């Protein structure tokens, strides 16, 4: 009896498609090289929602695209006036915050993604920042971090920046700034209906320093003494060369 039941259930599971809608997507590039003349770059993220059956009429399909740079721990400090001088007084430690984070959507983020799904997938900007709890006014610090990084272009929320055609084809551009930190950049695409995530897909863009940048960075980190001495030799040669050149020109 139980065996027959199990067999029936298995058949049922196989007959149903795993997901009603599935993402097929592409990213314009999978590698970004930071070379000497690197001045930021734009990436194109595109795709389509594939489905076996006709889609439901309501709620409408929505698309959210996020691009996330490597996360680092950091400290947020607050200045306070002490004896007429502004000193750093309060501080909140952040266990991890992305060095870059961009969200592009087809609509108001709060309207197309429920708070539960946001908490689960860490989509909105504040949900990607993980503070070390303990301070009561911690939220104002996290807001400040978001404000500062939005100002520098490191954090970006672009609502309605994803173009969605015929409830299926979508595309968006994300501009990566010039002050990019190297590492793996995670690209996530979410399909949502009525605030619920129906499918999600992840891609990785490899951002690496290349050429001279790579060589100098490696040398500075792995052979700091040689790097330091080399810096001095260059400085000395330049200084000596200049004084020699100047002397010859005057003679």
């Amino acid at each position: 009896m139980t065996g027959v039941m199990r067999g029936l259930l298995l058949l049922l599971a196989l007959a149903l498609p795993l997901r009603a809608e599935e993402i097929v997507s592409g990213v314009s590039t999978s590698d970004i090289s930071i070379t000497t003349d690197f001045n930021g770059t734009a990436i194109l993220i595109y795709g389509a929602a594939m489905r076996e059956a006709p889609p439901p009429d309501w709620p409408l399909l929505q698309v959210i695209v996020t691009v996330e740079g490597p996360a680092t721990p950091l400290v947020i400090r607050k200045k306070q006036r002490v004896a007429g001088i502004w000193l750093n007084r309060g501080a909140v430690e952040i266990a991890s915050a992305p060095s870059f984070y961009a969200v592009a959507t087809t609509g108001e983020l709060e309207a197309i993604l429920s708070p539960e799904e946001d908490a689960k997938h860490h989509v909105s900007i504040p949900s990607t920042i993980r503070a070390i709890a303990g301070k009561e006014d911690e939220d104002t610090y996290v807001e400040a971090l978001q404000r500062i990084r939005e100002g520098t272009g490191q954090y970006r929320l672009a609502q309605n920046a994803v173009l969605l055609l015929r409830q299926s084809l979508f595309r968006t551009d994300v501009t990566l700034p010039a002050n990019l930190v190297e590492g793996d950049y995670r690209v996530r695409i979410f399909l949502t209906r009525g605030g619920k995530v129906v499918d999600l897909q992840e891609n990785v863009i490899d951002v690496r320093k290349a050429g001279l940048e790579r060589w100098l960075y490696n040398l500075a980190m792995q052979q700091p003494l040689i790097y330091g001495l080399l810096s001095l030799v260059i400085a000395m040669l330049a200084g000596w060369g200049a004084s020699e050149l100047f002397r010859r020109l005057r003679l």
Partner: protein
Amino acid sequence: MQLYLPIAEVSVNAFLLLGIGGFVGFLSGMFGVGGGFLITPLLMLIGVPPGVAVATGANQVVASSISGVLAQFKRRAVDMKMGTVLTVGGLVGSTFGGWVFDLMGRAGQTDVFVQLSYVLFLGLIGAMMLTESLRALRRVGAPKVRRGRVHSIVHDLPFKVKFRASGLYISVLPPLMAGFVVGFLSAIMGVGGGFIMVPLMIYVLGMPTKVVVGTSLFQITFVTAYTTLVHAVTHHTVDMMLALLLILGGVIGAQIGTKVGVRLKAEQLRVLLSLLVLMVAVKIGFDLILTPAELYSVTLR
């Protein structure tokens, strides 16, 4: 032309860097100072992280002071013995300064500490230099610089040594202390410290003016080279690409600056330099006192 700096991890305009190097080089050639006190704040202003600005500033000062000290050697205007004593004091001071710098960093007060040192020392030296040079300008024909010839405590200390090139027979302790103070400031402010060393040499040690600039450059070369190495090894904050552009601009600027400087009178130069020093001090002082636009700041851990 944008240039991505491998250590600072920011992209800046290459011509802007050449311009900053050239501008500071011009002033340093004109006034005979390293220019670190201008380079470091300017770099922070264009978005270079403070740690990288301090370390790379020191590297840039090595280039400009080497160029200067070589010229001074040819004119026999370097007191090697005094320079060595000052350097020994400087290395100890720089090490101590690096330690205090780390301590302040852990307390989260690096920027305020650096700003306060700038305001305090630049303000003090600038005001002293301005009053002294204005007085000298008014007294035309009078001796240019007063030397600390008066019998003071400097002459009563033990361990007396003959400094032939300076014509001095004094204790090694005051020059060691002077070197220490300047080395300490070099590490925390990313400067060579010439603007403090020169007055100390003239007014406290009583050295003759003809060897002061050369000997101060001699000491600065070694202390900033050491500071650069310490930062490169312990903090990995020397950006070679950034240094190279600053040096390139600085070297050209210094040549032009020297030519302009020769046309001006020494007292006029000192008035201009002191005004410049005071301007930097006032600007940084205002930053400390005025309510900042953003109360919060973010530091990587």
